[in-house]
């Protein structure tokens, strides 16, 4: 017996470029007159012609690189935004969890926030009341229940938020990358809870960068690429295809125009790109592969000796490290274009997306020529069969995952 719970047909979402966000009055008028004149400011399709079905009790994993349209798809199915083309229907009560703790208010107590978050996620007040004890127990913050949430640690907040989410009883559950938060034990508790959900005949749609979480939860998987369905099928097949998939889109390249502002005009960035060992541009890499960041910049003024300073942040926003060649490195001497590659060894990064900020700096006298925050990112993936992965852990925590030597000392 199979009943289609989610049916999606030709779903597409078009975004207009050029000031769709935060329009001001002038922008709005300009746009309207442009629309009247039939001139478009350009648009792009975040999602294009996506069709699939999910049956009752199934869990469908959705994977793809950053910008492939995963989040857009979930936003459409959650009805947060409307599709430009196509249609879908969902047969039953839906809860979507694109974030844990949506609507949490720091001034309110834990108890009040449980009610707030619960009703935001679609529960009735009576339902929350009925499950309150269970939720509180699952969260493990009983003692602080009457304290304002602003006094909670971030871990406690996440636990409380997840406890609420875990007690939703929807027929269809839509989840975006929420397992990245919380400690290991708690994550396993949550994955366990989600497995219960599917075994109870409920349906799950799950987006994650974490291949092992997808693998443990979903039998079927869909790979999105540039807003379109690239492949769909058995999870292991799709994941392997994704991890070993040749990168063709050069999103790992970032070029700077002459107009990119500098602080003093003495030196400016030309381009940056992620490269593999053979020098090909990449936008993602495996934990076990070496990679490099190639930076090309130009010196416009004689006498300055700029060199790039790289700041690398992980997806949680923590600064993982700062790297530069150093005072005595013979970088960037003389007018004209310079190029340097920052090389990273294999087994350094963890499974995550890392974000690069760059400062073009001369050390003596200390001058910053150009600052570009968050200019590009790289997605580091893990092979399912990687030997650095412990089989029982879904996530290996840590900003980095270096491979150290473990010597055996005979005793």
């Amino acid at each position, binding site marked *: 017996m199979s009943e289609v719970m989610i049916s999606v047909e030709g779903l*597409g979402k078009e*975004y207009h470029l050029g000031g*769709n*966000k*935060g*329009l*001001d*009055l002038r922008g*709005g008028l300009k746009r309207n007159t442009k629309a009247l004149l039939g001139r478009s400011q350009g648009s792009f399709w975040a999602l294009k012609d996506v069709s699939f079905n999910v049956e009752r009790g199934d869990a469908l994993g959705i994977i793809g690189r950053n910008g492939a349209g995963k989040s857009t798809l979930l*936003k*459409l199915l*959650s*009805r*947060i*935004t*409307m*599709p*430009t*083309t*196509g*249609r*879908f*229907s*969902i*047969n*039953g*009560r*839906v809860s*979507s969890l*694109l*974030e844990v703790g*949506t*609507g949490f*208010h720091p*001034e*309110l107590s834990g108890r*009040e926030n449980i*009610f*707030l978050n619960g*009703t*935001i*996620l679609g*529960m*009735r*007040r009576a339902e929350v009341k009925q499950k309150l004890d269970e939720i509180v127990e699952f969260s493990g913050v009983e003692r602080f229940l009457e304290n304002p949430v602003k006094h909670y640690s971030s871990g406690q907040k996440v636990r409380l938020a997840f406890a609420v989410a875990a007690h939703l009883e929807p027929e269809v559950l839509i989840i975006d990358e929420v397992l990245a938060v919380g400690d290991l034990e708690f994550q396993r508790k949550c994955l366990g809870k989600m497995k219960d959900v599917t075994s109870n005949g409920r349906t799950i749609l799950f987006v994650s960068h974490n291949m092992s979480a997808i693998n443990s939860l979903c039998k079927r998987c869909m790979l999105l690429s540039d807003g379109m369905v690239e492949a769909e099928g058995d999870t292991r097949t799709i994941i392997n295809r994704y991890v070993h998939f040749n990168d063709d889109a050069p999103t790992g390249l970032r070029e700077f125009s002459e107009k990119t502002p500098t602080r003093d005009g003495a030196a400016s960035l030309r381009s940056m790109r992620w490269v593999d060992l053979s020098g090909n541009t990449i936008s993602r890499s495996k934990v076990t592969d070496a990679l490099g960041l190639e930076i090309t910049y130009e010196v416009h003024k004689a006498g300055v000796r700029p060199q790039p300073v790289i700041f690398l942040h992980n997806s949680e926003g923590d600064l993982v490290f700062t790297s530069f060649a150093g005072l005595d490195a013979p970088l960037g001497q003389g007018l004209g274009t310079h190029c340097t590659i920052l090389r990273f060894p294999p087994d350094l990064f963890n499974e995550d997306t890392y974000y690069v900020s760059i400062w073009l700096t001369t050390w003596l006298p200390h001058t910053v020529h150009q600052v570009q925050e968050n200019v590009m990112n790289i997605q580091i993936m893990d092979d399912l069969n990687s030997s650095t992965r412990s089989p029982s852990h879904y996530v290996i925590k840590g900003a980095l995952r270096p491979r150290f030597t473990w010597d055996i000392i005979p005793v």
Partner: protein
Amino acid sequence: MSMRIEVDAKRWKPIPDLRELLAHRDLFLTLAYRDIRVRYAQTFLGFAWALVQPMATLLIMILVFDRAVKVDTAGLPYSLFAITGISAWAYFAYVLKESGNSIIGAQEMVRKIYFPRIIIPLSKATVGLVDLSVALLVMAALFVYHQVVPGPNALLAIPYLLGIMLASVSTGIWISALTIRFRDLQHVVPFLIQFGLFVTPVAYPAQLVSKALPQWAQVLYFLNPMAGLIEGYRWSLLGVGDPGGLCLLSYAATLFLAITSLLYFRSVERFIADLV
């Protein structure tokens, strides 16, 4: 609870879905409760703030319009005359101010979860009822203090008050929807409230305007929904003024605002998450 969700890019209903709104009433109540709690949490005076505002406004109006300008209130104590206007106007101003920023303020939620977006301005309007109730208590106290008995039409104050709420909520919905597209409106709203106080019979009787202005200006004056509503509200309680005539324009304007606000909000609702 079994439901079926269908979304089609080609089919879209311009009429707001009341059933869906009703299904989200718990969320509406919770959000309103949150805003009330948060509004007075950790302030030194707490709920007393709801009392301070109308009292301060009343005081300044007594000084300016009663003592200095000596406005003619047909023999009624000025404080009683003014508090009827103030209670209504303060609510209108509060709803406008809060609605303007409401959706941008809730953008985190709007981007992460679905619910009928109109709940946001509606819950803000509900929070304003706390202040309105306090202002009405001040009014009641002034009735007792001046030993004035409300006129024979006092019960009509209820529909007038409902009309004032409708006008406030509708304007609020309009502004909240417009602010999504045009952030500039955030700066216009305080100006609108300040300006509105002068062209609404809050501190002075509407007759003052009718006597001094040409016909066309009077029509403009009463196209302001609050003008006729406050005049009628005061008439029902104190028996001064004339709730007919040009005031009918205000009632029509209120209805017009109410209907168009719902339709306009509905039309931008689909894109709120893309715009904020």
